[in-house]
């Protein structure tokens, strides 16, 4: 077997090949499924942590600084370093990948949700209080629905960057489509495999983004009516 470093003009190593996709559909689908499941789980967990944090920061202004600072510091730690910090404790596997991407997604969601909450007009808030809404009633019936556009913006950004970040999970063997890309690189620089993984990553991000944008339109019909008027 000959081993060459340059495959530039090699017809045997095209940038894309349906043949490859057909022959390896099982591997590709497994990687895609793992990537999708990691992304969905990570974003769900991140929302369940980040939205309550944003509400806490909204109710108790004193907490806003520390919450934003801690999530901000987490966000600035290089991704590979975060893997390095967690892997010795959490081991090699999906838990480590999930934890890393959740920690990264927190800042974006917290910041956007808090921005959405603080943009609720004071008159609306006072009117709700005057109508006898308590703190929790106001939160669920007034504040959170009105903050939905901000929360969704954060959610979309977090989802798109999570799709890209999951690929770094290669370092612990759970990178989803990253696994495909990396294996393609190691496997004599097989361009078709690298390209397939990359395209699927970008497509997955696009599909998630469009789905969330669509969900946002359905959930906030009042915004559409206003812009139509």
């Amino acid at each position: 077997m000959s081993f060459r470093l340059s495959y530039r003009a090699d017809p045997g190593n095209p940038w894309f090949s349906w043949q490859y996709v057909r022959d390896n559909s099982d591997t590709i689908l497994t990687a895609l499924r793992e990537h999708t499941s990691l992304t969905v789980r990570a974003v769900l967990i991140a929302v369940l942590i980040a939205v309550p944090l944003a509400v806490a920061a909204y109710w108790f202004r004193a907490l806003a600084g520390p919450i934003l600072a801690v999530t901000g510091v987490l966000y600035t730690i290089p991704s590979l370093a975060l893997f390095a910090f967690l892997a010795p404790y959490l081991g090699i596997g999906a838990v480590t990948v999930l934890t890393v991407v959740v920690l990264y997604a927190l800042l974006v969601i917290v910041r956007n949700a808090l921005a959405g909450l603080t943009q609720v007009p004071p008159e609306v808030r006072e009117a709700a209080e005057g109508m006898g809404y308590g703190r929790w009633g106001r939160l669920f019936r007034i504040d959170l629905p009105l903050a939905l556009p901000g929360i969704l913006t954060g959610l979309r950004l977090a989802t798109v960057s999570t799709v890209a970040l999951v690929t770094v999970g290669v370092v612990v063997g759970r990178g989803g489509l990253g696994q495909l890309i990396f294996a393609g690189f190691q496997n004599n620089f097989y361009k078709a495999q690298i390209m397939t993984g990359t395209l699927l990553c970008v497509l997955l991000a696009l599909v998630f983004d469009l789905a969330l944008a669509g969900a946002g339109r359905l959930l906030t019909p009042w915004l559409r009516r206003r812009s139509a008027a």
Partner: protein
Amino acid sequence: MTAAAGPIEAAVVWLNDPLNWTNPGGILDRVGEHLAISAAAVLLGCLVAWPIGLWLGHSGRGGGLVVLVANLTLAVPTLALLTILPLTFLGFGRPAVVVALAVFAIPPLLANAYTGVREVDPEARDAARGMGFSGWQLLRRVELPLAVPYLAAGFRTAAVQVVATAALASFVNGGGLGQIIRAGFGLDIAAGGGQILAGGLLVAGLAMLVELVLALVERLVTPRPLRNRGRRAGRRAADAVSGA
């Protein structure tokens, strides 16, 4: 050997071994590589993004393009670019890594250059025009100096991000501190845990150091009356790009 101790103890032991610092491929070598790659990538990013961003800001067009570039690069995995570029005409080695990292430096540089020029007081612009400045003179002598705080803020964001991302160059054996972490993972977690953790500390520490130094630089190049405003505005520009 050190596997029995916790990862933190193992990391301390690993960092305390002078050979791990001075060996070929040791920490000192890797820091040098890391900084060289990062500096080249940020420089390349500046050469591409600043002229375009300043020009777009000057002409007042292309705000949509800036957001589009930012969103596109958000969706492309770093790993993908790092593995694809060596297979193009760039070839294996440092140029491909530098270009891959520069791509991720461009959005903050571009956005801040654009916003910096857009945020120039329209009255200052009108006054300059009234004095007979041509478009080019206006850009060079009025808009560019006033945009410096934004340029500095973008530079800092981009540089920190590149230093952080450069750790991933180790996936394609591109050198840098990430190499230490990857080697640790290669040993398996029990034996390499200390080295992995030590590598992580070095990468995070370097990123933090760069952040601190550039924050100082940013402060120095921002004229005193603009300092508070500039910082807030810089953050606004970053938010505008991330869509917030």
